[in-house]
């Protein structure tokens, strides 16, 4: 079964507010995590990643937090905009042959930004 899952399937926030999307993973040996954004009819788009030797990483309006103790990952989006409405997936990297990435995805959280 999947080793990565999300706590909430849907999340609605007001435009301009901050949002937090959560993710739990079960493989304590995973060393790399990625957040993807998927808009309707499109493939997933990379947002931000984090390696297990870090507990926080910031991008433009986004921050990923990693808590290895409880195997929890979160994505914070600051000052949300209508364009942030999408499904967000966390993915856990399991090393395959030759060190390739084998991403295990969670089911996704649908984020809706209300005007």
């Amino acid at each position: 079964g999947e080793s990565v899952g999300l706590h909430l399937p849907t999340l609605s926030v007001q435009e301009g507010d901050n949002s937090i999307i959560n993710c739990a993973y079960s493989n304590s040996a995973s060393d790399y995590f990625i957040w993807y954004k998927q808009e309707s009819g499109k493939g997933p788009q990379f947002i931000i990643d984090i390696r297990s030797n870090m507990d926080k990483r910031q991008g433009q309006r986004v921050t990923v937090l990693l808590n290895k103790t409880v195997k929890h990952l979160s994505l914070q989006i600051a000052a949300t905009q209508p364009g942030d409405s999408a499904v967000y997936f966390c993915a856990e990297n399991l090393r395959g042959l030759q060190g390739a990435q084998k991403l295990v995805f969670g089911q996704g959280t649908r984020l809706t930004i209300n005007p």
Partner: protein
Amino acid sequence: GAGVSQSPSNKVTEKGKDVELRCDPISGHTALYWYRQSLGQGLEFLIYFQGNSAPDKSGLPSDRFSAERTGGSVSTLTIQRTQQEDSAVYLCASSLRVAGGEQFFGPGTRLTVL
């Protein structure tokens, strides 16, 4: 400067028929991945290719599924004797390098098996 492209964008087929889905990765990307996304679900890894090395087929759900990558570029995912449970969006991704490289996804092929 084109991204990953996939064709067709939509495919409707009858149960029992074979289908071929095509993926054109970003030029120069050495790794190519196939995923399956069922309605409202996350992505399920199917197979990946790295250069001329043997592909990792560990995610293929049955022997009806196969994939090829010719010349280290274009890839074709073939599903034989399609079943209704094969209906899903099939996504292809490529990355510049295998280990730790960001995967760039195509728009997917939506397969519907009647």
